[in-house]
């Protein structure tokens, strides 16, 4: 299918009622008018620091964006409970891919292809309902005042060096799903053999990292110099500026890994036109640029990179979609390795 054909088709599919028989431009205009009439779009998400995009959406479209943050662990139960009671307030939901897949299986999501994501890579469209827009990319951070660039780890294997014993902070690998997925991702996408990977994980555990609950608290001990290295997200270099943070790995062409960030419309969205307008806006070049520039996110929009030095040179890969049972299994395994 040519790009033109796809775009036209997507726009037609996304438009409602009369708009479907109008030209794309007229259809989009009619859609926006309907969205304005609905007044607001409610967005349930687990992504952080997106206030600037919510404000820009309101300013540019005249539709108010309302954002409620729900942690990954409460996402499915919250949305499913509301949906079962017929009181789902969300028009658009955003969470890690497995969460949205669970919601889709529960019939909570509606199919929609946003024209704004027409030029996104193929991997961002796992099905007709869920749209991936970025990767929650993970790497390690270090304090440039505590660790010279020459001494910083160059590749993942260097994190296992005994010189970092007691100097690493990371989210608890027994409980934090993203960290569990990252460690499993290293096995599948970075290390040459399972044996090498196992040795790496055991050596990392032997370095006795300090555990915190999630990625959020990982940068603070590095900023203050309490620890030297954080297994964390390079986006903090942007959001925590001017903190003296730098990232790795920079050697051996190793990729960065992360969980895909997904979004979808809800099946019984209280504000369906506003929901589509919101999703289109979120996936637009402008919003993707803001996500990258202001929030440091790694987005799927082609050619848009976070302002993190060298990030446009590195390969960022989505981790395989780990289901609940696999996460539980690996969580227990990492608990054994890291906590004895």
């Amino acid at each position, binding site marked *: 299918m040519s790009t033109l054909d796809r775009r036209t088709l997507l726009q037609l599919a996304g438009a409602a009622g009369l708009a479907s028989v109008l030209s794309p431009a007229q259809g989009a205009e009619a859609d926006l008018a309907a969205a304005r009439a609905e007044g607001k779009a409610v967005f349930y998400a687990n992504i952080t620091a997106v206030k600037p995009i919510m404000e820009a959406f309101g300013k540019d479209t005249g539709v108010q964006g309302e954002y409620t*943050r729900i942690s990954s662990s*409460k996402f499915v139960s919250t949305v499913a409970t509301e949906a079962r009671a017929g009181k789902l307030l969300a028009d658009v939901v955003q969470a890690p891919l497995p969460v949205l897949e669970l919601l889709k299986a529960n019939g909570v999501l509606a199919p929609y292809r946003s024209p704004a994501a027409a030029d996104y890579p193929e991997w961002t469209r796992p099905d007709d309902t869920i749209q991936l827009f970025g990767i929650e990319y993970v790497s390690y951070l270090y304090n440039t005042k505590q660790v010279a660039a020459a001494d910083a780890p160059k590749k993942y294997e260097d994190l296992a060096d005994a010189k970092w014993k007691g100097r690493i902070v990371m989210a608890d690998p027994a409980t934090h*799903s993203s960290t569990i997925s990252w460690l499993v991702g290293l096995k599948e996408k970075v290390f040459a053999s399972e044996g090498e990977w196992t040795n790496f994980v055991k050596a990392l555990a032997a370095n006795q990292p*300090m555990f915190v*609950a999630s990625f959020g608290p990982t940068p603070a001990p590095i900023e203050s110099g309490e620890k030297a290295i954080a297994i964390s997200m390079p986006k903090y270099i942007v*959001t*925590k500026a001017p903190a003296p943070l730098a990232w790795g790995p920079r050697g051996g062409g190793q990729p960065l890994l992360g969980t895909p960030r997904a979004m979808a419309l809800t099946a019984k969205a209280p504000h369906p036109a506003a929901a589509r307008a919101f999703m289109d806006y979120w996936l637009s070049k402008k919003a993707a640029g803001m996500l990258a520039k202001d929030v440091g996110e790694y987005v799927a929009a082609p050619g848009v990179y976070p302002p993190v030095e060298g990030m446009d040179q590195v390969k960022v890969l989505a981790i395989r979609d780990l289901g609940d049972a696999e996460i539980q299994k690996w969580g227990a395994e990492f608990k054994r390795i890291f906590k004895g």
Partner: protein
Amino acid sequence: MDTRHQGLTLALILIVGVLTVAPVAMLALGSVSEGLDAFGQFTLAKYASAYTDPGLWQVLGNTAVFVVGSTLLATALALVLAYLNTRTDIPFKFLFGVLAIVPMMIPHVLFSVSWALLANPSNGLMNLALMQVFGLEQGPFNIYSMPGMILVEGLLNMPVAYLIIAPAMASFDVSLEESSRVFGAGTWRTLVRITLPVLRPAILAAFVLGVVRALASYAVPRVLGMPGQVDVLATYLYEMISVGFAPDYGKAAALGMSALALAVVLIWLYRRLTGEGSRFVTISSRGWRPAVVPLGRWRLPLFALVALLSFVVIVLPVAVLLYTSFVPYAMVPGSEAFAQMSLKHWHEVLHDATSLLALRNSLFLAVVGATLGVLLSLFVAYVIVKLRTRGAALLETLTYLSFSFPGIVIGIGFMWFFVQTPLYATVTALLIGYVATYLPYGVRPLASAFVQVHDHLEESSLVCGASHLTTLRRVIAPLLVPGIVSAWILMATMFLRELTLSVVLSRPGSEVLAVQVLSFADDGLWGQLSALGILMIAISTLLVVGAHLLGRRFGARAG
């Protein structure tokens, strides 16, 4: 038994029952149901799975040490402070009021983070200072440990214990102590043999509340226990419901039933130990005002001790908060940090529409919620302590029902319940949830205050022709003013920074401060978080001062 008394008891059982049973029933149902999170085919698999984990026993051991240790510390500190403040001539008594309140206003996550900055083994400020002064190779403190957790949790719970014990201590009948002295007992012996035993209901109330509170505590175990790998029940439950994307809250609820059972046993024990109410009556007639015990040569050393405690509990963490709100990122204090200080975080918080809405909502919830909560608690405490009707024990147990459930889980129970009602996603739902969950914070101080008021006062008023309501308003209530003020302060400050329920029930339009603080914490935005924390402390201070002034005015006029 007076049928009116039974009627009042029944009405209260119904009100409190509706408030507290619904979410717990939802959780109980979820714990025996198959399915994603609740309600399906009957099963005991969740119980079997929750209780056969080999790691559970160590967690329970840690939990026992943490809960008992921190509660003993909190109660002992509160007892000493309350005694010094209400019964002795120690100087600068205003310090006690501040000591009792300020730690309650600091969000627990922030308080814990402050202590991590002060006493982490790598570069904690206290460790660095001691290493420099004494030339030590490594810092002597490790806050990421069981003693560290007990210290911080104990300091956080100390104000609650103080607010329960101090009013009871203040209304102590001095004639009991005078009699003791007349018979030759010294100050210490009188304290141990007379003062403390008479205060038993208040001390036990503080202890019971402390135990349940420490059991549900999550912030300290998360911030300090997780890095030190000291797992307690709260972090264990968190682990249970956070691994994977479709957590089984039913399994966590199954484990929560043990905490509930423990709370019921504690209440039973408490009722047994304070069963003979008349033994603890101290306000029976005129002349009950306590006398001041001269401290003599201990006056200044004891004051120095209180000043040191104030410094550790208030000045250090608040100073850390203030400092963090001015620096651009987590920096060790020094010339570079001071050079980079600005009002940027304050500006961001004060211009953030969500933060301002959260401020308004939380203020409303604190003032209205605490007032309603205290009103309900007043009647509940009256029935529990004075009427002691057949249903009183059930009523008392009901007040603890949702409070004793692990905080991480109870919010889900409330969500399952409220979503069936039109109240879902409203500030009213939060208000009801708060009052239902934190009822013990109102009932406990009022119950221990009621215990000390002799029935003769009430009977005299009734004999003289006053109605029950007039008696409550003109005779009982004025004597309870310290208890009412304590209960209101406890509830209002608690509601202002409530997180457990809010994080689940808060939706656009019903945002509250603690959720906003958590949001900043999740983003690692410690500067904004600290600025908002300072605002929370300031608002709480205003509420507390207002409550004290009102209490004093009402008490004086009534008296």
